[in-house]
């Protein structure tokens, strides 16, 4: 009987995944495959930034002012190793983009993780207990969604700037960004989980488990949660793209990442100022990268939603 727990007798997870409808659907959707490859490249290069980039854009000592505002390599005046040119401080644009993408992705992932945690937890409770708990949680969600997120972020980050010691300011700003985005996006997860939980908790398998005395917390986590994961998965993918965009917006407005730890949004904001002085590459390339990243994530999310939808019922 102990072999029951060893996976040798059953197909491995990978094998089952290869057999699944999802994998077949993925393979037959060229746009999904393309988006996945592009996204994979963007993420890979972002996390290998220290290895790939010719320059450490955070190291102010490495910047040489006579390299400032160099155009891309294929234009007259372009210089190696600055493939996409440099900004006004002589910072390599390509290096800035790679590091900036990494920050954008980390903030995106962190805010999705935080909002998933909060949204799933509160959604399960609202759906499972119903009644006033449900009412209170969902009305809080409604209120949060009706507050403009930019206002909240400006408010919170300016307060944080006041009270945080300078050493923690950058980490503090990143945390504030993550929390501001999460505060806004947990509501969506909570709604999805709540709706599914209200369906699941009436099903007989939940009653059967209640009859053997399973406590509510374990009922929610072991029984109900796995049956809500499919729609959450879709929502999380689409929200990852949204989180990166919100972060870029906030950074563009100056309440996000500071110029010495730039995200893609910060790069765009800084570069924006030089657009009309002719140095268009400072703003164009980070913008293109942001577009590629978000479009790839959204294409994957759209495909996932369509691929998983018939099974949701």
């Amino acid at each position: 009987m102990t072999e029951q727990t060893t996976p040798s007798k059953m197909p491995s997870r990978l094998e089952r995944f290869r057999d699944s409808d999802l994998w077949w659907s993925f393979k037959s959707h060229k746009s999904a495959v393309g988006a996945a490859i592009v996204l994979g490249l963007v993420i890979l290069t972002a996390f290998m930034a220290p290895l790939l980039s010719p320059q450490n854009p955070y190291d102010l000592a490495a910047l040489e002012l006579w390299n400032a505002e160099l155009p891309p390599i294929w234009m007259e005046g372009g210089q190696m190793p600055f493939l996409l040119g440099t900004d006004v401080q002589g910072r390599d644009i390509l290096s800035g983009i790679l590091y900036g993408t990494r920050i954008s992705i980390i903030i995106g992932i962190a805010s999705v993780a935080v909002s998933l945690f909060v949204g799933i937890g509160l959604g399960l409770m609202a759906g499972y207990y119903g009644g006033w708990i449900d009412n209170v949680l969902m009305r809080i969600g409604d209120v949060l969604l009706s507050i403009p997120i930019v206002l909240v972020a400006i408010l919170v980050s300016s307060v944080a700037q006041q009270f945080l010691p300078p050493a923690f300011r950058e980490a503090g700003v990143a945390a504030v960004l993550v929390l501001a985005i999460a505060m806004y996006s947990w509501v969506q997860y909570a709604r999805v989980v709540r709706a599914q939980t209200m369906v699941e908790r009436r099903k007989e398998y939940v009653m059967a488990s209640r009859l053997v005395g399973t406590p509510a917390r374990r009922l929610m986590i072991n029984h109900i949660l796995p049956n809500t994961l499919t729609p959450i998965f879709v929502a999380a993918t689409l929200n990852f793209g949204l989180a990166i965009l919100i972060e870029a917006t906030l950074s563009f407005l100056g309440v996000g990442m500071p110029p010495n730890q730039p995200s893609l949004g910060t790069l765009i904001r800084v570069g924006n100022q030089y657009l009309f002085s002719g140095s268009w590459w400072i703003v164009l390339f980070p913008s293109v990268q942001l577009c590629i990243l978000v479009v790839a994530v959204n294409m994957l999310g759209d495909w996932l939603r369509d691929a998983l939808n018939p099974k949701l019922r």
Partner: protein
Amino acid sequence: MNDLAPALSVNHVTKTFDVSAPWLNRVIERRPKLFVEAVSDISFTVQKGTCFSIVGESGCGKSTVARLITGLYKTTSGDISFGAGTAGAPIRMQMIFQDPHSSLNPRWRVGDIIAEPIREMKLRDSEKETLERVRELLETVGLGADDALKYPHEFSGGQRQRISIARALASEPELLVCDEPTSALDVSVQAQILNLMRRLQDELGLTYLFISHDLSVVRHMSDHIAVMYLGRIVEQAAVEELFTAPKHPYSKLLLATIPDIANPKRRVEAQAGEPPSPLNPPSGCAFHPRCPIAMAECSQILPKLRQLDENGQVACHAVESS
């Protein structure tokens, strides 16, 4: 059948559901609160080792009775008490559900589904013993030991119902509440499951509360039958009594609609009328709009459930006056 100790007694139990619209809608639309009386003033006793069946049309409150007894719903009034089980402890109870598709968690392996009661109630000391017990249970219900690794969707309806039975047995119950365990199955599979349940009753000395909308299913299982109509018990009798000499017009109607094996075309014209809505029950005897022998008083006065002989009870004005 042997000792006449009650395993379960239900005394004047009523269950009302609040089906009102949300508070805000009610206030705006000036609608009153809305209640459904799904179960009204029900009493019965189940003797140890016997099978007590409840029959009635869909929507008459059978599942609600089952869920009240197992404690999934709280009673609005009345009380439910249990006899002593082995060694004086309260009798252990489990339930088998109607829908084999929603009664097993689709994300769990069958082995984990059956092991859940053992793990939750800590009935075995080690994981090894738990798995051993799971295998034993799978074999008891006619499945194989390696089925433990599969997921519910890999099984047919009948096999899933076997898994449900194995899960119910895992907690070593003495009383099994079966809410239409076969009504989602094909006729041929129904017979297999019913035979399995009979065999288990004999082998394990189980007491059954068996719920069905189909009298023919109940006949071979039960010792005693209660007929429910719109939340009330209208007749209660020993099986043979009910099948040979039904008293209540509704019991007669149910019996007449059982397909006749010798003469299957005779599926009877008797299914006169639709069951009324429990939201808006008829006055007096709830059966009077469909009753072929309804009298004037039937739409006015609710007939009480009366003891006829030591085993039979019926609630009907016509039977009283005869």
